[in-house]
């Protein structure tokens, strides 16, 4: 799709444990920051889409008290109960409908407030898996990791290489939780074993934080900024429940990527994409994503990593921000990939900027073992 909807502003809070800050403050900081970044006032917004979760917020209709801090008072306001990356698709559709010109998307949560691993348990089949209390986000991720390793021969040390790359990258991202410039494979292998083969440094750090992105129609975007970041393509796909699909590959990510590439006119992703921000809740998922995104052939994820191509100075850097292994606020983690990809296109990423980015890929996921995946292709002028 050619220059129909653009990203014109974005902001993230720092990620961490802000148990003594209210979620309204986090949302206000992200919303006000995004408006400042776009150089517009609240009055310019036509519609606001929040991405929060009732269970994590401990209240039904979790968006109801976010009207004030998101600047949505007396405006068209609605909510997506998934990662904010999906809210971007919804906001984009609202703009494409012609009813709205400017939309703000906000994703937020506070892991320090809710019982951290219960929301993952609540995603399970309530008449069987949930009550058995064996599956949760991490143990399910471990089954996925083992299935992938068994299918393609990836080793735990190779998988640890993703944590090393991303958490070292995060040293250049002032907002990240885990900033580890000298991390080694041995450090990852020595970290606390959770569910084999997943150790603490292979798994996302549950974080507090918020992210906001402002979208605009082409006409408005060009009025607002000289540097709009255009959405050239998007693809979204939803796979089966985790025990009812092959866990050794990310089928719905491949389908989402293929749709996004078709819309954006990308035939060779490794050649045409300059940087990718991937939503890897676990380090093995980034290797699986390389394959699903077509950066390498099936089973070649480890080889691609070891070639250095996805490092900061490689041919196709992946997760210069550190990705979701470096900071992961549920509902904001995928949205943050979009904000980070937009930063890279604009050349505003500071000490984690990749040189010469024209086309960026951003990925978001929701559900156990990356059940649903969404891919955006972004680019400048």
């Amino acid at each position, binding site marked *: 799709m050619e220059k129909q909807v653009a990203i014109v502003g974005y902001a993230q*809070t*720092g990620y*961490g444990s*802000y*148990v*003594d*800050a*209210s979620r309204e*403050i*986090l949302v206000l*900081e992200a919303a006000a920051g995004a408006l400042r970044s776009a150089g517009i006032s609240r009055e310019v917004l036509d519609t606001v889409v929040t991405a929060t979760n009732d269970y994590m917020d*401990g209240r039904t209709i979790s968006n109801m008290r976010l009207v004030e801090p998101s600047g949505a008072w007396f405006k068209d306001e609605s909510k997506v109960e998934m990662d904010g990356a999906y809210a971007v698709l919804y906001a984009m559709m609202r703009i494409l409908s012609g009813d709205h010109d400017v939309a703000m998307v906000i994703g937020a949560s506070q892991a320090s407030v*809710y*019982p*951290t*691993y*219960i929301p993952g*348990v609540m995603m399970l*089949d*309530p*008449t*069987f*898996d949930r*009550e*058995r*209390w*064996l*599956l*949760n986000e*991490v*143990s399910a991720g*471990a*089954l*996925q990791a*083992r*299935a992938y390793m*068994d299918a393609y021969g990836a080793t735990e040390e190779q998988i640890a290489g993703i944590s090393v790359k991303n958490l070292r990258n995060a040293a250049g991202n002032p907002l990240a939780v885990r900033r580890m410039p000298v991390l080694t494979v041995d450090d990852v292998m020595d970290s*606390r*074993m*959770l*569910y*084999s*083969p*997943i150790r603490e440094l292979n798994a996302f750090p549950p974080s*507090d*934080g918020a992210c906001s992105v402002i979208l605009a129609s082409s006409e408005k975007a060009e009025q607002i900024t000289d540097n709009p970041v255009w959405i050239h393509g998007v693809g979204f796909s939803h796979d*089966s429940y985790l*025990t*009812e699909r092959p*866990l050794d590959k990310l089928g719905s990510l491949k389908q989402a990527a293929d749709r996004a590439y078709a819309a954006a006119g990308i035939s060779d992703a490794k050649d045409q994409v300059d940087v990718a921000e991937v939503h890897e809740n676990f380090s093995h998922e980034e290797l699986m994503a390389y394959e699903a995104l077509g950066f390498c052939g099936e089973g070649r994820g480890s080889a691609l990593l070891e070639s250095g191509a996805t490092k900061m100075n490689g041919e196709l850097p992946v997760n210069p921000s550190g990705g979701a292994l470096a900071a992961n606020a549920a509902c904001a983690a995928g949205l943050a990939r979009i904000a980070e990809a937009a930063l890279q296109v604009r050349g505003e990423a500071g000490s984690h900027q990749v040189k010469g980015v024209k086309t960026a890929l951003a990925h978001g996921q929701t559900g156990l073992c990356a059940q649903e995946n969404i891919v955006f292709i972004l680019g400048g002028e």
Partner: protein
Amino acid sequence: MEPGGLKNVDTVEIPAVPVFSWSVGNFMEKFFDGLKDGKLMGIKCPKCGRVYLPPRMICERCFTENEEWVELPLEGTVESFTIAHVKVGDDGELEDLETPETIGMVKHKGADTCIVARIEGLDPADAGVGMRVTVVIDKSAENILDVLSHYVPC
């Protein structure tokens, strides 16, 4: 501004614990009844022949209601596994287990989907993908969900 810069002075605990009474549905009830008779019952899509275990009412691929019950062998193959060193505690955080345990994802011959349960009676270090296991049924289990108790190596 640091997000913590404008602070709430106090935190409040919200003690309400939601308790739900789910109907397991006709299909799961039949599945549990089968287990009590020592049988593992799956259900087949009339269109594509995909067999769901545990049974599901709808074949998502064909958008068809499943209807044909099939009895499956008690033996299955480990498709994936993990050695649990932690569990989710009552507070929702990961707490260390005293003794690591093996959790397996098992596919029974004739089924297209998997069951996740503990594998007992083995050293976790000996667990592997492709291992043959048998389901252990505990007909006297108090909770209906525990009738399918665990797996043991064949």
